[in-house]
């Protein structure tokens, strides 16, 4: 055994040279090279002898030769595969259904025949994070068992199986990964949002039971044929994380157990993982379901570049992402494990065109997604519940919390909520009129009147939440009444507004009401002219 590095280096250098010296001249060479150092010389001579001998047990591929190699191959043939019929705990393996870097998942059924129950048995690879799992499992099991939400595949059992490998038994879900489901079923944006809400509700419920998922990603969410989304592996990431303590602390090294691209900025930085990480990952999921791509380019694959992108790069607005010719261009990224897709293809999978999809995402959905994806956990939605609330508000056509509270926004929203009755022309009238008059009126008086008019319209469309169920007709009737009463001393403004409202009645197909308002406006103007 050569302990001194100095001796090693000297001997290695002499060995190198000696190998080039013809055998007959080696003795003389070694005399010269080693000087009087007998220890060095003896070592080099042994090395030279060893180098010249072709040891049959030590040749290329030698590690796998002989009976050892045969047995090794036999074991490999059997491998860590579990053939159908093998029992793991109380379950009998039916077939393999999935395989990851750390585990193999089998479809299995109850072996004791008490009742028929199909389960998914996740058998961990040997040699990976095994020692502590059984102990931790007992502790976590109770917590996980509390998360009895229909949107969560329940953890049923666990233990140590064949070859000392730990296994987890989970509810078996017969479904497709959420993203594939959405694309194959050509789900529209609202339908995708509703499916997303199912997932978010499940996560929210778990949060109330103090369980953080930590690894929300499309491959962990299956959708059954009847359209129910189920989250897999709830709390498993923590269970498998050798560095996790009983709290939620997660160190930098633990990121290896995560899917790197889906890590949150705080996970990347090695900061504590909280429910805010799940908000972020739900944001990523939402982004992916809406746009078919990833919010930022993760770089050329260098882990450092990827982590930097996650920690710092600002997401591309969803509405901009879908207008890039091909995903991965224009700043956004290709979702992990996917091919770049053309904008047409992405829109088609959502039953629409790229232009329409962009308009649909622009505004509220941009705001909701980007709020969930903020780098700073404090600036995201404070909880999954708040994220859910905004998506639900969007679907109901109500104002969302993620956007600045401007009157143009709220007015536009109000008009859109009644989109079925309100025509596009009506929306244009309400908004275009108000804005147009504010900005184009050149005369002082006109501008003042326009301001009043805009202000009045704003108030008219601003209704208390409890009366949100007003129909457009009721809204307009109310407006007319208010114009008559409140603007009694300002006939010019009154006339302008009644004309505007008359136009809106016309747009609703209420011709009689429209005509009577036109007449009333005409009469007011006549009075003004002194007729």
């Amino acid at each position: 055994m050569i302990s001194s590095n100095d001796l090693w280096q000297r001997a290695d250098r002499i060995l190198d040279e000696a190998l080039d010296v013809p055998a007959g001249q080696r003795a003389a060479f070694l005399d010269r090279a080693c000087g009087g150092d007998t220890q060095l010389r003896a070592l080099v001579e042994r090395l030279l002898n060893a180098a010249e001998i072709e040891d049959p047990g030590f040749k290329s591929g030698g590690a796998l030769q002989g009976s050892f190699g045969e047995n090794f191959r036999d074991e490999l043939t059997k491998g860590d595969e579990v053939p159908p019929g093998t029992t793991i705990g109380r379950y009998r393996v039916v077939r393999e259904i999935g395989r990851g870097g750390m585990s193999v998942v089998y479809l299995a059924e109850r072996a004791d025949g008490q009742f028929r129950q199909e389960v998914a048995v996740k058998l961990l690879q040997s040699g990976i994070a095994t020692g502590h799992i059984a102990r931790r499992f007992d502790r976590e099991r109770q917590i996980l068992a509390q998360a009895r939400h229909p949107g969560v595949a329940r953890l049923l059992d666990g233990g140590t199986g064949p070859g000392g490998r730990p296994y987890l038994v989970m509810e078996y879900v017969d479904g497709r990964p959420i993203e594939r489901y959405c694309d194959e079923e050509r789900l529209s944006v609202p339908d995708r949002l509703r499916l997303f809400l199912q997932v978010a509700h499940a996560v929210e419920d778990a949060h109330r039971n103090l369980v953080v998922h930590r690894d929300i990603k499309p491959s962990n969410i299956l959708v059954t044929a009847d359209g129910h989304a189920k989250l897999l592996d709830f709390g498993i990431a923590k269970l498998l994380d050798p560095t996790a303590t009983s709290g939620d602390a997660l160190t930098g090294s633990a990121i290896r157990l995560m899917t790197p691209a889906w890590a949150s900025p705080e996970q990347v930085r090695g900061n504590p993982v909280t429910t805010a990480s799940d908000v972020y990952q739900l944001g990523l999921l939402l982004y992916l379901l809406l746009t078919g791509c990833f919010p930022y380019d993760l770089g050329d694959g260098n882990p450092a570049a990827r982590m930097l992108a996650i920690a710092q790069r600002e997401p591309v607005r969803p509405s901009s992402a879908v207008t890039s010719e091909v995903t991965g261009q224009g700043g956004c990224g290709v979702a992990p494990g996917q091919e770049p897709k053309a904008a047409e293809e992405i829109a088609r999978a959502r039953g629409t065109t790229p232009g329409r999809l962009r308009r649909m995402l622009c505004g509220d959905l941009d705001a909701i997604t980007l709020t969930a994806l903020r780098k700073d956990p404090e600036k995201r939605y404070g909880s999954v519940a708040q994220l859910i609330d905004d998506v639900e508000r969007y679907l109901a056509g109500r104002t969302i919390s993620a956007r600045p509270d401007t009157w143009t926004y709220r007015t536009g929203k109000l008009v859109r909520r009644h989109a079925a009755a309100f025509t596009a022309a009506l929306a244009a009238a309400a908004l275009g009129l108000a804005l147009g008059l504010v900005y184009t009126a050149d005369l002082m008086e006109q501008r003042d009147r326009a301001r009043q008019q805009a202000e009045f319209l704003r108030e008219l469309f601003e209704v208390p939440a409890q009366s949100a169920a007003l129909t457009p007709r009721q809204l307009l009737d109310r407006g007319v009444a208010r114009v008559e009463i409140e603007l009694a001393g300002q006939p010019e403004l009154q006339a302008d507004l009644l004309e505007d409202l008359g136009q809106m009645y016309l747009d609703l197909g209420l011709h009689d009401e429209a005509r009577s308002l036109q007449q009333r406006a005409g009469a007011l103007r006549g009075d003004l002219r002194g007729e």
Partner: protein
Amino acid sequence: MPENPADVTSLLVAYGNGDREAFDLLLPMIYDDLRRVARRQLNRVGNPDKVLDTTVLVHESYLKMVDQNRVDWQSRAHFLGVAARAMRQVVIDYARRRGAAKRGGGAIQTTIEEGHIAINDQADFLLSLDQALGRLEAHSPRLARIVECRFFAGLSEEETAAAMGVSLRTAQRDWMKARAWLQEELRA
């Protein structure tokens, strides 16, 4: 949840750019895949003699795990290097399990079935070789890599040279030296 090929490719590129962490992340992925591919090779109908061709093995794994469009020719060499290390682990893990079986309940079997003695001897030999390799690595990481490529992964001289990024002649010379040094280390 299949292993994401994009990630292996990305890590390989990063490793090629000198990212050591990428090596640590790649190793377990390739370790698992080699076992899988080996199993498939051995179970193949056309392979009744259970020949394990490590060269084919490593290449199959490479083709499967790495997106060929995203890497240059050097990535293959880098992959071979990591795969050779992974093969060393696969083999040594098996030797360890054999050793554990011998010390445990397998003891009676060992004395009865003659074949097992040879196997366990070789398992012991491999374990001490692995330790010697660890010591050699402290003096010369390059020589240790050569042993992984040649002895454990069974790569050819040419492939070893490519994986190491050295000339064929250097690969041959290093292999010769590495064997000499290992025998010296094992002598004690």
